[in-house]
């Protein structure tokens, strides 16, 4: 048996093979919210109020609410939930990030079915638009390998966009371009016959849209995120709801920025081979689920002079699970 694990800034997704012809995914919102009671009575009241929610109690008596319940609780208090990860790697901004990420990953991945069960998890590529000491993929990888090894897995890392290629480019002989639009980053992989030739990332994605829209409208990031995920808007089009109007506008700018970065990164790149045929481009990730996203992305690619011949721009069959599926495929042939 083997497992695939997409360790994302916003979602953690576990993939494993179920009964014949089935794949079982376990999705978990990568967020937490801490409530620290000040009196024993408050402790009892809070614990009662959290009935049915997913949470843990810390040694100092505080309650750490996890997952989507954390976001709901934060929105209820007009506050923002915290993230154990920031821009694709374990957050150095949050004091409890490593401990909570460890707890979540242990719970979501569960115990291995046999000692040394293979597990492949995804990591981001080095960004082309940011040089930041906080961005340490090596450390992030080491933290995850250590905790998964302690649980009993034989764990290995794979580039996020490479995993997406394995999941989505099967009918194209594993040749094409894949972009994983997560919350913190956009990861890119150009693949030729199953071999990644170029991988890189950019550091603006869904969280950037939320942050910018939150600043523009004076709302908390969590509220913007909740509106974005539940509301009806089309990327780049006007909207009566001011939060959604801001979100739609910043989406447009994000796509424009990313396609320009793609063009700049690939134009004249030594490692890019001369492709005989036009390439399929696959997009996935939670950020790509917005209405009108794929069409606008295809338009902007052309407008910003993307240097490779494009056959089609298509959405992954299951945009939220595609990376985890790719990790599972990699684990099965590891």
């Amino acid at each position: 048996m083997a497992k695939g694990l997409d360790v994302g800034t916003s979602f953690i997704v576990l993939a494993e093979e179920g009964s014949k012809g089935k794949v079982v995914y376990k999705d978990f919102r990568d967020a937490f919210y801490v409530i620290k009671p000040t009196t024993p009575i408050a402790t009892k009241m809070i614990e009662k109020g959290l009935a049915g929610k997913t949470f843990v109690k810390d040694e100092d008596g505080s309650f750490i609410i996890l997952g989507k319940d954390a976001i709901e609780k934060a929105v209820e208090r007009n506050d923002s939930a915290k993230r154990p990860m920031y821009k694709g790697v374990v957050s150095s901004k949050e004091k409890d990030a490593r401990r909570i990420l460890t707890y979540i990953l242990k719970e979501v991945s569960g115990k291995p079915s046999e000692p040394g069960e293979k597990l492949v998890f995804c990591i981001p590529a080095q960004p082309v638009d940011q040089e930041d000491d906080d961005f340490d993929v090596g450390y992030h990888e080491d933290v995850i390998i250590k905790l998964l090894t302690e649980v009993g897995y034989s764990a290995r890392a794979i580039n996020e966009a490479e995993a997406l290629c394995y999941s989505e480019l099967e009918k194209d002989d594993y040749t094409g371009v894949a972009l994983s639009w997560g919350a913190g980053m956009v990861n890119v992989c150009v693949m030729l016959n199953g071999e990644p030739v170029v991988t890189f990332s950019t550091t603006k994605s869904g969280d950037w849209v939320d942050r910018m829209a939150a600043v523009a409208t004076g709302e908390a990031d969590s509220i913007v995120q909740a509106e974005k995920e539940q509301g009806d808007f089309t990327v780049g089009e006007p909207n009566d709801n001011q939060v959604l109007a801001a979100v739609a506008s910043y989406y447009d700018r994000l796509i424009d920025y990313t396609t320009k970065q793609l063009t700049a990164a690939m134009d004249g790149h030594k490692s890019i081979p001369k492709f005989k045929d036009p390439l399929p481009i696959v997009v996935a990730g939670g950020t790509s689920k917005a209405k009108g996203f794929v069409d606008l992305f295809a338009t902007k690619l052309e407008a910003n002079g993307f240097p490779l011949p494009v056959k089609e721009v298509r959405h992954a069959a299951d945009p939220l699970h595609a990376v985890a599926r790719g990790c599972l495929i990699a684990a099965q042939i590891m």
Partner: protein
Amino acid sequence: MNDITIFSIQVLLYVTAFGLGFVIGKITGPKISDPIDAKGSFFKPVQRQKKVVEIDEKKFVTDITTDRLIKKGGELGTQVIVNDDVGASASKLAQLKKNK
């Protein structure tokens, strides 16, 4: 042979002997090199050749204990089951990698 011819031959012999001595001396003599004190002008300084010796600054992963987090409430994660023969996809990719 007149005097000029004899003089020319002598000069040629001296030059040849000096040349041979110079070449033999260059080949067999001690090698003098001073890479540390290589000279350069003020405006075009000569960079010293440094040996690259790097220290491993990779961040150490300390123990992370989660024992003091007491689980309350429900299970983490929502389960979704889809029809997907992922094993066939893995076989195809494995075959492609094997054929390379």
